[in-house]
């Protein structure tokens, strides 16, 4: 079921409260994520994220907050067409977990799941895959290393 689940973690030299604000406050989300963000860290809150805002084809996607347990857990569904209701079939689930790790240090983990359940129309899927393809070319070799260690061709 969770075939397409991404799990990533990072150690941050800052208290959980500071990290919490960084990942939940719209004006800060704009500095690490989307070009524009309308979102409130409250379960059920519905908002939007805008990517490529300064181009002819800005990409606006919906975001719905699932859980907001300050300052330990923040999760939301996203990448569904704005205006629709977020479901398992049209969105993926992102969950941030913040764990205090000693004085003034935070372990931040992000899990994105449900990528295989994306049941998008051809256009949306095409768009979604196009966004990814840009990165494929850059990352191609490294990805193959990940998938098949020892089988990589040297550059």
């Amino acid at each position, binding site marked *: 079921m969770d075939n397409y689940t991404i799990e990533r973690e990072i150690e941050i030299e800052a208290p959980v409260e500071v990290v919490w604000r960084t990942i939940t406050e719209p004006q800060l989300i704009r500095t690490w994520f989307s070009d524009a963000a309308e979102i409130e860290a409250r379960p059920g809150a519905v908002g939007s994220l805008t990517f490529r805002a300064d181009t002819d084809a800005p990409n606006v996607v919906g975001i719905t907050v699932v859980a907001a347990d300050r300052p330990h857990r923040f999760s939301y569904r996203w990448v569904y067409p704005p205006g629709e209701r977020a479901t398992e079939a049209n969105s993926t689930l992102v969950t941030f977990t913040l764990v205090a790790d000693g004085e003034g240090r935070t372990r931040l983990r992000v899990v994105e799941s449900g990528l*295989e359940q994306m049941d998008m129309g051809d256009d949306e899927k095409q768009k979604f895959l196009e966004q990814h393809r840009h990165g494929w070319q850059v990352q191609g070799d490294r990805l193959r290393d990940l998938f098949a260690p020892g089988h990589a061709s040297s550059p």
Partner: protein
Amino acid sequence: MNPSSDDDDLWEAMADPTRRKLLDLLVAHGHATATTLTAEMPVSRQAISKHLLLLQRVGLVDGQRQGREVRYEVREQRLAEATGALSEVANRWDRRLRTIKQLAEQAHAADRSKSADSGGGHSPRTTL
């Protein structure tokens, strides 16, 4: 073949853990048949044959008949494309997490110098 149904098929082919495992084994062995793969998988030979046919249909493996068996091997270029689809999401999060780390650490450092300064009457710059 139009590009979007092509992507759909590749996406779906890679979503299945059994098929990913089969690709893994094929890469490790160079080539294999449904029979030799069955020895290493907790799945029936029949199921493995089906998966291999699907992988062949989306271009991830090539099959060559040898007597009563078909010998399969991975098409590397296609596999690189497909694993890219899987890992790009992870790479994006890596980049985002690094930026979050930078931002939070800067904000924290600013908070600290602010409280250290508060006795000195210096007016600190806020970053958050």
